[in-house]
């Protein structure tokens, strides 16, 4: 058992920089993240990618830290890898910083590190540098993780939120709102049970397949906080275009619909952690969807609307009765509506 750390919980000593800190790093983090580029020194020394590089950083706090379909560790890799992928960048390197609450169970930390290892491997990214701090009881909620990713932009790829054009088809890579719904249920505040798991997934390989299918891509954006609805408004604003959405074509799992019905929430505003919105010329759309259907995390991919020149900055839905209604612009804390 010499590879296992002996203490059952994380203590202030694990963050003090001494023997216990090295032990924590060696036996938990290094044991899981081991790769030729992982540094034991002050900084990782790396070979820069050829051509352009994408860099992205993201902080992760999620309560609860463990939820059906993942945990904060998996999330912290997916979030950053997906941000890189959205720029058409192949994820190469990742750094991670932990802030851990005193008393956090060591076993849980192991589990988080193991999830990070597995997800990083799947995404083909190497964790090259890390940092650990321990905060006093109550100063953080369990564990917070910040990851920074570096990726190589494949030659000839140029996508961005400002590049949507009238005539583009809008594709979503799977059913929406799962992650947000899962977290809502996992908090057990509303006594609702449903068989919903988070969509949390690393999507670089999915993007890679889409780029193999066509190079004619305008926008790739992952729909995280605020959901697909927020992303569509962001892009409508950035590209100064209008967006037409067909309400009935947006894939939503029946359970997610049921939960939203009970709480008066709109699935389009619930967070996703493994869903992307893709905009590309209509002629390419079928090819893209076909490629997506062959990937493990996008079997429900669907064309949900189109980009237009009308009503720039607005997202308009074709409703179930065929009328046009503006999708309300999301904002503020998502509060269940009952009365």
């Amino acid at each position, binding site marked *: 058992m010499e590879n296992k750390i002996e203490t059952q919980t994380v203590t202030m000593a694990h963050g003090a920089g001494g023997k216990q800190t090295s032990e924590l790093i060696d036996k938990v983090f290094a044991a899981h993240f081991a790769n030729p580029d992982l540094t034991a020194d002050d900084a990782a020394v790396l070979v820069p990618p050829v051509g352009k590089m994408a860099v992205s950083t993201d902080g992760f706090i999620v309560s609860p830290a463990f939820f059906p379909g993942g945990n904060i560790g998996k999330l912290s890799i997916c979030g950053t890898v997906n941000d890189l992928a959205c720029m058409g960048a192949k994820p190469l390197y990742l750094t991670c910083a932990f802030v851990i609450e005193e008393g956090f169970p060591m076993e849980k930390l192991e589990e988080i590190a193991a999830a990070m290892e597995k997800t990083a491997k799947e995404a083909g990214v190497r964790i090259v540098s890390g940092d650990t701090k321990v905060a006093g009881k109550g100063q953080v909620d369990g564990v917070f993780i910040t990851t920074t990713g570096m990726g190589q932009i494949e030659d000839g790829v140029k996508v961005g939120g400002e590049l949507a054009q009238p005539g583009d088809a809008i594709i979503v890579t799977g059913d929406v709102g799962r992650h947000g719904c899962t977290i809502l249920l996992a908090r057990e505040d*509303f*006594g*609702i*049970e*449903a*068989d919903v798991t988070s969509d949390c997934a690393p999507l670089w390989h999915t993007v890679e397949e889409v780029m193999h299918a066509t190079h004619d891509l305008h926008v790739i954006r992952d729909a995280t906080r605020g959901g697909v609805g927020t992303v569509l408004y962001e892009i409508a604003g950035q590209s100064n275009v209008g967006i037409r959405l067909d309400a009935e074509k947006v894939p939503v*799992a*029946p*359970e997610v*619909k*049921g*939960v939203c*019905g*009970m709480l*008066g929430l709109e699935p389009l505003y619930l967070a996703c952690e493994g869903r992307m919105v893709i905009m590309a010329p209509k002629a390419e759309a079928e090819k893209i969807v076909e490629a997506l259907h062959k990937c493990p995390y996008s079997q429900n991919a669907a064309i949900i609307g189109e980009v237009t020149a009308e009503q720039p900055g607005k997202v308009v839905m074709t409703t179930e009765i065929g009328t046009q209604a503006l999708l309300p612009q999301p904002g503020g804390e998502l509060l269940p*509506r*009952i*009365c």
Partner: protein
Amino acid sequence: MCVGLSAKVVKISNGTAVVDAGGAKREVSSQLLENLEPGDYVMVHAGVAIAKITDEDESETDQLMEELL
């Protein structure tokens, strides 16, 4: 004023019912309704089943239109 949700009763016990809406389940009070049975549909508001209903609006509206004209 009152978000209502039609849901199917899947379990009944002692003043409470478990209802199911598209796979989302929740325990609600069934104290306002008599003779509720699994398989019935109810209108749920704020955790209380307020009315026993039929689950589809089709025949209801058809009949209203019929009477209207």
